[in-house]
């Protein structure tokens, strides 16, 4: 379904990004006032955009199952509250998630390619990707080799993403740039461009293991990269900020950025995701507050 992309840019050239102005633009967007119906709509939309995530060394089959149940019914006493987009787990838990989520319409996403550092031979990474897809993953969240990127070996990154994309087969590919390690917005823009031209379906900010994880300026630069890619090719790439988005207020600010940068076509779970775990409960709390006029105690929301 994807068009052939011609005219691949020269990645040794830098698309300049002015950090001061990016921050200023974000600050201005953050003054948008979201009230009443438009707030409720956005809270529910944000809920549907969540990749509910558990990526801990201490993960267990029980924990993954619980998370899947939460994904399907975030708040059991209200059927109106939408389910999330996907559950994101380590490769070894893909099968359990797949089975638990059967028939729910919720995707299983798996991190792969030696998440989070990416330090492994390409062959090993590709094997891991194929393993995840065979286990039933619908979406693969890969990490790029930041070491090679920072070295200036951009063609390595391009080839790496392209190879992983091929190994994904039917699965969707999200490319994690780990922007906290790329540091400059020029680098963020460059890594975004490389990932998109090499075949990413989504570009994603962070693993969540490095601080800072997702930030608004970084996300805005990536959204603008997606826009330029769309202007040139007509292909719509998705965006996933991940890590550090814990409350509804922040989530709504991200939605404002998407709305005013890319427009309505990106305002759905096929094109925009939040990589988050605790965000779901805060959204629930706000939705119930909008409905009832009062805040419920955190004890009324399941912690998974």
């Amino acid at each position: 379904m994807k068009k052939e992309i011609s005219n691949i840019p020269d990645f040794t050239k830098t698309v300049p990004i002015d950090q001061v102005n990016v921050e200023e633009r974000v600050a201005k967007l953050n003054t948008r006032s979201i009230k009443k119906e438009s707030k409720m709509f956005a809270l529910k939309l944000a809920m549907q955009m969540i990749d509910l995530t558990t990526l801990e060394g201490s993960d267990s089959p029980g924990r993954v199952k619980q998370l899947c149940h939460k994904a399907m019914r975030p708040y059991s006493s209200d059927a109106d509250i939408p389910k999330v987009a996907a559950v994101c787990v380590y490769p070894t838990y893909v099968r359990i998630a797949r089975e638990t989520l059967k028939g729910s319409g919720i995707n299983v996403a798996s991190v792969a390619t030696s998440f989070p550092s990416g330090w492994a031979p390409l062959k090993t990474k590709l094997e891991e990707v194929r393993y995840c897809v065979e286990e039933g993953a619908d979406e693969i969240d890969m990490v790029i080799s930041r070491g090679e990127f920072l070295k200036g070996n951009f063609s390595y990154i391009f080839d790496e993403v392209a190879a992983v994309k091929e190994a994904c087969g039917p699965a969707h590919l999200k490319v994690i740039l780990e922007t906290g390690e790329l540091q400059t917005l020029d680098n963020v823009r460059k890594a975004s461009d490389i990932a998109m031209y090499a075949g990413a379906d989504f570009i994603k900010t962070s693993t969540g293991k490095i601080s800072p994880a997702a930030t608004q300026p970084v996300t805005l630069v990536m959204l603008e990269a997606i826009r330029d890619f769309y202007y040139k090719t007509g292909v719509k790439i998705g965006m996933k900020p991940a890590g550090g988005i814990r409350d509804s207020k922040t989530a709504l600010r991200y939605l404002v950025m998407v709305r005013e940068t890319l427009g309505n076509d990106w305002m759905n779970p096929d094109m925009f995701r939040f990589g988050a775990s605790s965000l779901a409960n805060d959204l629930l709390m706000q939705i119930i507050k909008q409905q009832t006029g009062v805040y419920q105690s955190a004890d009324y929301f399941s912690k998974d």
Partner: protein
Amino acid sequence: MNVTDQQKRYTLDFGTGWAYDPAPESTDHISLKKKYGHFINGKFVEPAEGNYFETINPATEEKLADIAVGSKADVDAAVKAARKAYDKVWSKMPASERGRYIYRIARMIQERAREFAVIESMDGGKPIRESRDVDVPLAAAHFFYYAGWADKLNYAFPGRTPAPLGVAGQIIPWNFPLLMAAWKIAPALATGNTVVLKPAETTPLTCLKLAEIMQEAGLPDGVVNFVTGAGDTGAAIVNHQDINKIAFTGSTAVGKLIQRSIAGSGKKLTLELGGKAANIIFEDAPLDQAVEGIVNGIFFNQGHVCCAGSRLFVQEGVADAVHQKLTDRLETLIVGDPLDKNTDIGAINSKEQLDRINSYIEIGLNEGAAITQSSCSIPSKGYFCRPTLLQNVSQASRVVQEEIFGPVLTIQTFRTPDEVLEKANNTPYGLSGGVWTDKGSKIFRMTSGIDAGVLWANTFNKFDPTSPFGGYKESGMGREGGLHGLLPYLKI
């Protein structure tokens, strides 16, 4: 991508889906009187001839208050009060004490910031986001800044003995009513002068609220006087025999008139007049940020900004890309109720100004310009104008030569730095300019080549009380702000 590739333009959908609900700023907390007299000698007084005019809300066309028409007699009373205050109190007061009053005014503006912001938006039509985040905080900052200079004038001009001039007559425009009052009053008071100020006839309210602050601050009577009215009132100030200094911000035509009127009178003069600034985008500029700079340059305050970046010059290789981004960006600008916290572009200040802007758009079209406007709907009541881009224009076009003072941007392309410098300077104005490039050396080359008083690099429409502001050529004389802003109010 090859420039000659005639590719399909992929468009973005900003028209459907999620939209923001109205988020109007409350007006419960403001207090406006039905009728305002002049503020002379520390009191609100009825106009001598008893005449009033209406000030309206340009977003609703509803009347806000009746405002006194200033006659020669009113101006004379105000000047007499100012002269007395100068002779008896203000020029004799220790400078540090003068500074204390100015600090107090600054703090009181901060305390009542919300009220000032709402009234500014109601009376002038500017979006509450701007009056709240720009006008009012900057006005307070100006008073704070000049309060600090009051007792340090000898250090500002070492080896000199700076002395005040006497009574300053000040006339300000309608685009930044409170801020312009602050720009005028703060340095005048800090240097020991007293003031007679006339706000613009369409936007007198925040000045009259400022008068209330002067009262509450206990500022000695007559140090600051406000006389309201239109051009005749302004002329009475300009031509008054006992005024030592005229400071005017407004149109170049009126500026020339003032300069003629006071020739030979010995009055000192500061003029801050019109502009037609070039905003220059090089192909190596950070384009997405430059687009924001273009938007801020021309659509800030509905384009009612003398230093607005109203002439856009884009290097040819990126002209299409910039135009596409700008066109999409226009669609996300929210035009409407100035009091809505989400509004980006508010109401045009007056019907007269709206007609003027529309006539310029007409002129542009007749000259063969290609027009791009936002598809947004605009309120049926009130004075509104869609953000507008005009392409296919040249140096010979009237829309390129003349100041429109509205949300209308002309777009031209260029190939070389010399070419764009020549075009940028090919205007009678010289107030401001902007350059966007990733290359530092290009910034220095371009900004030293543009004949303008204020130049921005990779930003636009940034103001700070520490930075002098003023024009070259027909954009005026004298500087406001910074150390330079003290000089027009001093004998040294």
